[in-house]
């Protein structure tokens, strides 16, 4: 990873992405309102890096991942992957392109079909994209299992015969099966115990080096994010509040929300003494987000301008963008 991040090629570019989910109601199921899960965000991911999205539940981080994969059709915006707009692709073309974008999910119990053996699960992944000729599939499956640290005999087994950590490894093998370029890890280690989580994190890192993978890593756990990311993007109520290099976001966080988030994490470290910003109240509803800065209702430094004007995401330092009236 000798090349500085700024000089690397952009692999994925998300532009003004919006994802509104309709709320049905009224007499005949009219749409009466929208959940503004993701509300106009723009960012990019460079070849070979790991970009993390952090935020609390309902901030839109998982929705962003699903929109990029077109698991939900976005409301508006564009998603350029290797200079092609994914949202303009037809059904067939999109299916072909899916080979390059894969996903690893959170719940190791729900992410594998309980009625398929591991061999079937991986074999199907190979068959759908037809990446390996039929006669070589078995050996390819063995190879994949080897990559994620499982024995070839696992092929004959059903998901329920594995532990959570092992299942997560199978999910990773499935994503790897089609030689993807970008893998979206949607809370991929959140459901695991700390000791198992560490194993899986190490595995992800080593696979990234081995296969030159790009990760979009979605997580609420800042410790995990610090460990795995090159850059970090913080979201709050469907908006990006800050994007920066890992180092600057953890050492010089600028947005009050980022600072509060960082200070809220209990850290088992006696030398790590911090000022604590204790936020009051709950996150407002994404159906009716506050005017102006989304964070102003909980921000300890709130000014009048914050209540009326939406702050733009502005460059505050090299590789550091923040959306806050007070900082800029």
């Amino acid at each position, binding site marked *: 990873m000798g090349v500085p991040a700024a000089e690397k090629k952009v692999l994925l570019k998300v532009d003004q992405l919006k994802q509104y989910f309709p709320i049905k109601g009224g007499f005949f*199921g009219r749409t009466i309102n929208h959940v503004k899960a993701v509300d106009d965000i723009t960012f990019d991911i460079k070849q070979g890096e790991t970009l993390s999205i952090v935020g609390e539940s309902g901030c839109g981080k998982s929705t962003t991942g*699903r929109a990029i*994969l077109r*698991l939900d059709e976005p409301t508006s915006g564009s998603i350029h992957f290797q200079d092609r707009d994914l949202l303009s692709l037809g059904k067939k073309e*999109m*299916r*072909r392109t*899916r*080979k390059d*974008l*894969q*996903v690893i*999910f*959170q*719940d190791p119990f*729900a*992410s*594998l*079909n*309980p*009625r398929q*053996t591991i061999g079937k699960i991986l074999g*199907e*992944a190979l068959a*759908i*994209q037809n990446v390996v000729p039929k006669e070589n599939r078995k050996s390819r499956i063995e190879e994949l299992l080897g*990559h*994620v*640290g*499982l*024995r070839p*005999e*696992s092929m*004959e*087994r*059903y998901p329920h*015969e*594995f532990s959570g*950590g*092992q299942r997560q490894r199978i*999910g990773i093998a*499935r*994503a790897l099966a*089609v030689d993807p370029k970008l893998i979206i890890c949607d809370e991929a280690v959140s459901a695991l115990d700390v000791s198992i989580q560490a*194993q899986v994190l*190490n*595995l992800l890192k*080593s*696979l990234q*080096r*081995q296969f030159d993978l790009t990760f979009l890593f979605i997580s609420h756990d800042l410790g995990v994010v610090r460990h795995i990311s090159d850059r970090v993007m913080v979201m709050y109520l469907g908006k990006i509040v800050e994007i920066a290099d890992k180092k600057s976001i953890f050492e010089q966080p600028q947005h009050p929300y980022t600072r509060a988030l960082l200070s809220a994490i209990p850290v088992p470290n006696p030398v790590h003494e911090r000022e604590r910003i204790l936020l009051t109240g709950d996150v407002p509803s994404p159906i009716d987000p506050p005017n102006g800065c989304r964070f102003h209702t909980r921000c300890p430094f709130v000014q009048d301008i914050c209540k009326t004007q939406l702050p733009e995401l502005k460059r505050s330092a090299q590789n550091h963008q923040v959306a806050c009236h007070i900082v800029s």
Partner: protein
Amino acid sequence: MKPEVVINNTELNVKERKSPKLRHWKAFYKKFKRNKLALVGGYIVLFYILLAIFAPLISPQDPYEIDLVNKLQPPSAEHLMGTDDKGRDILSRLLYGTRLSLTVGFVSVFFGAFIGILLGLAAGYYGKWIDTVIMRIVDVLLAFPGILLALAIISALGPSLINVMVAVGVFSIPMFARIVRGSTLSVRKLEYIDAIRALGATDFTIICKHIFPNILSPVIVQATLRLATAILSAAGLSFLGLGAQPPSPEWGAMLSSGRDYLFSAPHIALFPGIAISTLVLGFNIFGDGLRDALDPRMKK
């Protein structure tokens, strides 16, 4: 760069080296077997199926042979269950009637389940307007109380056992559609469906290979319980004279012919009723047992 350790402590022993499918079924059977009552249900159903298959071999008499001299005979050594108002052997008629009841049950449930599953899958998977349209149709079908919809259909098509199958089948559609839709919705939300979509699988593959097998359990349970209802409904329609026509040895029709002799020959009404009840009971407890073994929601 080698990944750190190989962790897989699930050792494969030789005994377990059978095909994975087989192990799956064995585990299910083990769970099912623990429920003694359900096992009894299974045996009852099996017993009736065997009776239906071998009815011509084991029937002591011809079920259609009229013998007016010996009519309304109480049970005796010659006629174990007595004779009916036309002197026919009730036991033989019951044995042949097993065929009718089971056929009506299986055909109508299969018909109802088939259409119901298609509707439910479409509604649950595609959602949006397809869901709205299908569910409104289902709502309308469910707005008919009890077997009245079946009655209306028979009033148009005319009384016959075939029409009973159609009517009872139609009457079963909404139940299946609802259950399949509900299960489809919950399976659809699972991450493995998204994973397989992200791999580029077509809707057809997803529905057939990933959703359908995983909603099968509640469908099988419902179908078993529905068989009980279908047999009851069909017998009821025949009892009203709207189903099987004389001289057919249909149980409901036989029962109906016994009601005029309730004073003098109650056995005519007694035995067909016992036959219907036990078969239906068999399906009901078999279905209960299947539900306990198959449906994870009911797990203790």
